[in-house]
């Protein structure tokens, strides 16, 4: 069977300037600098020439020039679907890109365990849940359950981490209560449903409740995750860290020790400016944001 050979790990060598030193990039269709993109959308207009013109105008407002309306299809009498191709003039300077760098070393489970043991002298307690009416547990389970994710074992596998997984549809008061009962060092919350910004509302409600329920120096570390979060939004949401699409348990474990356990090995000091900025725990128990 040929599929065995058609490997899924292509290795394209950039034809023109793929390796260019420049920080300024534009989309690449078939040649460096051509800026080509594909766009599709619906306009609430009946399909006619004017609608196609409106689609073109809209695409040109997005920076496509010339915007080629290559497909237009009526969807009933009031809507038209468009596919548009063309070059976009915007440039991106990769130095302007703000991301949450991994500002902690990735540690294997063994090291995580021994760090906790050596420094905390007790297991680190993690309470996890899907809050609100969200019942998507696969994501949080991927982080917490032994089975894990992407070949990495989940936090339950770590001998020095005690995991309390509350499951789905946990109300915020229940979560706060359970965190108190289990003396949680960290609370891990998952939010997958994002319609009408449900994930943002729920997260803010959750962080406010913890802030109210705990004195600043006793509040557990607040971590949220889910496929549609902006990892930069920690300050707005009042949490300590956000994890997005494709997070692995090892990353979370490594982050937790770096945040909760004084480091045994020196770690990078280029922490993102937002991380932990909302926390006011003593630096001994948690590494402060720089």
């Amino acid at each position: 069977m040929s599929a065995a050979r058609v490997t899924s790990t292509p290795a394209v060598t950039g034809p023109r300037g793929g390796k260019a030193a420049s920080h300024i990039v534009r989309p690449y269709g078939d040649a460096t600098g051509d800026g080509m993109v594909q766009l599709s959308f619906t306009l609430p207009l009946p399909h006619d020439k004017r609608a196609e013109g409106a689609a073109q105008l809209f695409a040109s407002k997005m920076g496509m020039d010339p915007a080629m309306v290559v497909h237009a299809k009526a969807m009933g009498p009031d809507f038209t679907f468009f596919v548009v191709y063309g070059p976009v003039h915007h440039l991106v300077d990769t130095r302007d890109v703000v991301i949450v760098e991994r500002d902690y070393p990735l540690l294997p489970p063994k090291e995580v365990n021994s760090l906790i043991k050596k420094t905390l002298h007790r297991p680190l307690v993690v309470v996890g849940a899907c809050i609100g009416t969200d019942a998507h547990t696969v994501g949080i389970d991927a982080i917490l359950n032994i089975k894990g994710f992407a070949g990495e074992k989940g936090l339950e596998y770590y001998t020095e981490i005690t995991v309390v997984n509350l499951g789905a549809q946990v109300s915020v008061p229940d979560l706060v209560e359970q965190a108190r009962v289990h003396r949680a060092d960290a609370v891990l919350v998952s939010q997958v449903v994002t319609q009408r910004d449900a994930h943002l509302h729920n997260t803010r409600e959750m962080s406010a409740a913890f802030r109210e329920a705990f004195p600043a120096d006793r509040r557990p570390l607040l971590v949220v995750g889910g496929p549609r979060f902006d990892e930069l939004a920690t300050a707005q949401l009042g949490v300590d860290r956000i994890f997005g699409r494709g997070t692995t348990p090892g990353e979370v474990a490594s982050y937790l020790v770096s945040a909760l356990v004084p480091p045994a090995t020196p770690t990078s000091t280029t922490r993102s400016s937002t991380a932990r900025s909302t926390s006011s725990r003593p630096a001994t128990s948690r590494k402060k944001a720089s």
Partner: protein
Amino acid sequence: MSRSTTEPMLDLDPATIRTARSLARKAGAPVVSMAKRHTTVSVERAVLRLAGLEGADVEGIPWVNRLVDVVREDAGLEHGVSLPVWDAMLRTGDDLLTVAQKAAAGSVTFRVPEGKDATKAAKASRAQVAAGIRRIDTSRRQRDKLIAKYGQPPAPWIYLIVATGDIYEDMPQAQAAAREGADVIAVIRSTGQSLLDYVPEGPTREGYAGTYATQANFRLMRAALDETSKELGRYVRLTNYASGLCMPEIASLAGLERLDMMLNDSMYGILFRDINPVRTFVDQRFSRQIHARAGIIINTGEDNYLTTADAVEAAHTVTVSQLLNEYFAKEAGLENWQLGLGHAFEINPDIPDSFRMELAHAMLARALFPDAPLKWMPPTKHMTGDVFRGYLLDGFFNLAGALTGQGILLVGMMTEAVVTPWLSDRDLALQNVRYVFNAAGNLREDFRPARDGYIANRARQVLGEAVDLLDRIVDDTLLNAIADGTFGLMKRPADAGRGLDGVVKKSSGYLNPATDLLEEGATR
């Protein structure tokens, strides 16, 4: 998908198949004898190229063109270039390049030698052209060695196109495509090249929707892919186009530079480039003799008909053309494994049962040419700017390829109706191929059209229509059929089209050492 599984049966009548083949022979034979009676400027230039004449003058006109033009002026081409040119070389003691340069400068004139002079010139030309033929043989042996070393990829071979217009862009893109899974890389030619009556020289960087086919470009790309073949432990084939006014020369260069497959259809140039039919058939016969010798797989162009004619109505014209291409190919010495006969997934997708009809057509080709690799071409005509729909259609094209055991799969692009393929289009397209073959490639085992079902009936119907059409062609001649718009709805009379003035009737004293060597299978 493994070839060993039970082949789905169409249950075609063997007698009908035999009739179809013999009609194709009858239709083609007059064209072959017409081809044998003529030569063309490009055939003669190809002989000079095989004799080792490379390079161009300051204006970029290749020396082979300069030389043939002067010979034609001085002595006519009825006898071929070989006798006059080697006669001049023997007379002047100059080598081929010098004679060409002198000819261009007007400092040598040509004649048709006679008697002993003729014998000497013939001998000398044969010796020098034979060296070129031996270089082709060496290339072929080298390919065989590499394939023996790396092994043959399983069918279907994944065929991807690069078309940047710049050989130095093409090379890394081709290497990337190979790494992503391509078994065959085709470098599309610049739109205008087929109308040029000369082959450009040197590496080129400015093609239009494709890159010029030049000997230097062939060499560069072959080297790049050899490097990648080594890296991947898999022989990556290189393809170009033996078409247009320089078909014989391009074929010769392909043989010399170890290209592995060549687009080479008996009628494409006539229909889609308006090249004179006689010119085309003469050039084509010589090209195919070269391809046969070089172990090159040809790809024919039946897919093109379905872009201008309707894929259902004209299905039988594809079959007819495949049979003709087969006949012409065999006549020129090509073997079954070298016949990448073309067909395409071009039925209007809105027609009921369109997919099953595609299967019927594809299985018919498979059944008629069981030992040919067959080249399966993706949808183009009914692709639209709806790239989502296009991606789905390409998936079903891939599935049809898997279910019917095609040999060469030209990978379809979702942007077919929009742009020449983007980097991401190729990546997405290969992902599509991978999914289909990985998930459903073996479905062929479960695919058993009933002997009297829709698929078998449709295949029989198309075969029947093909036989009828061949019958009419035999009656009325192939050249008239072409003139009448039988193929792809394009009407091309035998006395019109480009390149007719480059056709020359052979005299009884015509000599072509290349043809002789090829037909004799000789090396000296």
